[in-house]
């Protein structure tokens, strides 16, 4: 029997206007965890969708074991034992967790009646093995993005697939959940004999898990390496095509007076007694486990949901923030967590997306000025290094990282004092990540106050001046960057909840 379980040769996939994959080849060995890396827009997700039959390539062949296969659709791939966790969560918000897990491959009684008992049993087991303790009857829509991601993983597990593909599964996860995921993935390889393709922009994931790595760049295959025989810098060079000095270009800044202060801010059921201040020139990190309430705090600051009690003091005056407009007029900007749902109008061009928050800037209050709009957009387009066909390309045609850059660009058109960034580099490639970090650092040195929510430990440690750790709706610790270590942060984020569980 051959050592290669899956092979793709000379795959080309064309979207109207884009060549997403150009003559790409790939090999997956039996029982290995194979990392697939590349910049945003390199074609990784498209490649995955070719393997799972969602897209049909214009050219190329696919071999499973030794036999050539042609997939007519996702159904075929499922039949051959290929399962995938897609980059953008593909869940059914109206259905419950068990239904989400089993849709498409339901368990049935002899006569065709659905076997709910069995499905709930297996779902609960799967969730437990993933270290999750919500019930499988919970409605999917009430879960957080990260929790949904975990359900997606359970779904792939439930298919008992021989080949499992994970497209940036850790993007929304914190360290702790990532660890669970590593454990499960290794278990799959060792106990079930599955072969796994793992896409991630995080080097820690890759070094921790994979044994081999394939790199794509600009829709093309660059090469593949044994992981222990290639250095991080060489990999980055392969991916980006040039050297990237450091991922965390944090410049030292003079930290000034406080701009935004919270006093005892409380929103019943979500967070309580939150007090902290963000200062001029400072990058303040807000971290914690998924569901700790960080997003909710930021949204209250931005006027999405009003807090029930407590004070918000902006530039010395107490303010009430009715809605995002008041927040923006004050000078508070927010980069939301879910770029597709909250950040972008997917059908629109990059230009119109960028100018949306600040239409007044290129209009005389009422009338639009197309020329001026295009200029501003072009300007931003270049500033944040968006990779796209043109400034008018639709947002939906961009890769994840480039979409994120558009959302960042939206913030920069407005005249702000405080910038809140919620998971700004989630699912963003090294190059873009560097670019976004650079922008953050620049903003801070220009005197902006930056509040960054992040679940990625190295990022928090690399970029922030101060770190606040939240746990279950409350601040559990505040530390200066000089005193901060991974261990301290993790302890502040978890200890109490570990105690609770006993």
């Amino acid at each position, binding site marked *: 029997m051959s050592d290669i379980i899956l092979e793709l040769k000379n795959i080309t996939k064309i979207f109207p206007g884009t060549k997403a994959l150009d003559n790409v080849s790939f090999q997956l060995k039996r029982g290995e965890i194979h990392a697939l890396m590349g910049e945003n827009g390199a074609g990784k997700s498209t490649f995955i969708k070719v393997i799972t039959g969602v897209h049909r390539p214009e050219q190329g062949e696919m071999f499973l074991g030794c036999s050539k296969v042609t997939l007519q659709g996702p159904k075929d791939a499922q039949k051959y034992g290929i399962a995938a966790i897609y980059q953008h969560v593909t869940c059914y918000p109206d259905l419950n967790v068990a239904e989400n897990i089993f849709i498409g491959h339901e368990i049935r009684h002899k006569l065709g009646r659905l076997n709910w008992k069995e499905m709930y049993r297996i779902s609960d087991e799967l969730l437990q093995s993933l270290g999750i303790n919500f019930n499988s009857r919970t409605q999917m829509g009430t879960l957080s993005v990260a929790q949904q991601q975990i359900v997606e993983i359970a779904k792939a597990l439930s298919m008992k697939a021989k080949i499992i593909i994970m497209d940036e599964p850790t993007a929304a996860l914190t360290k702790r959940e990532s660890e669970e995921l590593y454990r499960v993935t290794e278990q799959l390889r060792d106990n079930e004999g599955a072969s796994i393709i793992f896409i991630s922009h995080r080097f820690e994931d890759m070094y921790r898990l994979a044994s081999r790595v394939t790199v794509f760049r600009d829709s093309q295959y660059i090469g593949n390496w044994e992981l222990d025989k290639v250095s991080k810098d060489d990999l980055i060079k392969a991916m980006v095509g040039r050297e990237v000095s450091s991922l965390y270009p944090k410049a030292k800044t003079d930290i000034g007076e406080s701009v935004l202060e919270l006093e005892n801010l409380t929103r019943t059921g979500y967070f309580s007694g939150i007090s902290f201040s963000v200062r001029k020139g400072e990058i303040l990190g807000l971290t914690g486990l998924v569901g700790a309430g960080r997003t909710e705090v930021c949204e209250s600051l931005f006027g999405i949901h009003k807090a029930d009690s407590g004070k918000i003091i902006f530039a010395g005056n107490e303010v009430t923030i009715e*809605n*995002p407009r008041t927040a*923006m007029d004050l000078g508070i900007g927010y980069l939301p967590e879910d770029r597709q749902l909250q950040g972008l109008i997917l059908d629109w061009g990059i230009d119109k997306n960028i100018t949306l928050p600040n239409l007044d800037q290129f209009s005389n209050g009422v009338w639009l000025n197309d020329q001026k709009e295009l200029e501003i957009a072009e300007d931003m387009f270049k500033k944040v290094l968006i990779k796209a066909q043109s400034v008018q390309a639709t947002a939906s045609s961009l890769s994840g990282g480039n979409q994120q850059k558009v959302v960042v660009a939206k913030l920069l058109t407005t005249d702000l004092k405080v910038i809140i960034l919620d998971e700004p580099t989630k699912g963003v490639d090294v190059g873009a990540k560097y670019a976004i970090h650079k922008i953050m650092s620049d903003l801070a040195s220009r005197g902006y106050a930056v509040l960054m929510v992040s679940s990625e430990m190295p990022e928090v440690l690399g970029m922030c001046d101060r770190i606040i750790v939240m746990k279950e709706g409350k601040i559990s610790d505040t530390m200066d960057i000089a005193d901060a270590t991974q261990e301290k942060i993790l302890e502040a984020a978890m200890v109490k909840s570990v105690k609770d569980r006993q």
Partner: protein
Amino acid sequence: MIKNTNKLSFLLKWEWMLVALLILINIMNASLSPYYLEYNNMMSAIMAFLDRSFMVLPMAIIIIMGDIDISVASTVALSSVMMGVSVQNGVPMTVAILICMATATLCGFINGLIVTKFKELSAAIVTISTMILYRGIAYIILEDQAASGFPLWFSILGWGDIGTIPLILIVFIAFSVIFWLILHKTTAGRQILAIGQNNTASIYSGINVDKMRLFAFTAAGFMAGITALFLTSKMASTRPNIAIGYELEVIAMVVLGGVSTSGGKGKIHSVILAIFVIGLLKYGLGIINIHSQIVTIIIGLLLIFSTLLPSIGQRVMSKLKIIRQMNL
């Protein structure tokens, strides 16, 4: 640039489809009836279908924002009845007109208020309820009576000309221009499109979504009031069952005008073309005495096929595009 790389794709645009359709209808009508192209007849045809078309404009905006307003016809009825009752009770006509417009605007405002204060409810269920409610109130007011006794000058609205152009046409053109400018040339229009595309992202982008929705529903009420004025003037009397079933006609015109019912897309000029396509088609078939039920069938088929063709065309176009790229 993806845009306009292909000349054919430009022709596939909805508004050109409608223009072609309009020309085709005119040729057909003119060849079938010797009376069709006479100026007077054409003008009275236009007068016959323009009254309800005032509501098409705000409806387009509302549908673009991802909502719908099913209560517009009932709003026409209630405001018209209010005006009629006022006149019958000796209120001067000018004041009665104001009452009509105020009632209609209020009806729209109430819709908007409920829809924005209770976001959990879809606009459809809210306006289905107010559709029943508003007409119900009209019945309570007038019962089985008709209200008439409007002064003679009031009939100018529905029947009068300025020069040789019907007054209603002039008013309609004025409103069309206003709505066109709002949607296509102002920041408010851009925001309306954004809300329709992605409500959540619009909120995060600092757009006051509630204000815009409230505005749109209120505008729908106001325009229903304008319809009520013209319609009542045309009939010189009013009853609670006036304008029954207009809501579907209005919605049909909006969707034929290429406005996506899932929101975020639409053009006022296409919608106006659609009004004329349906109106003139109906009129043309009318003066060659085609049975009105067959006209109904033809309108139905028109609705289906005029949307089917571009959807097929689009698919063919993107196939062609991929083939061309392969050869590059």
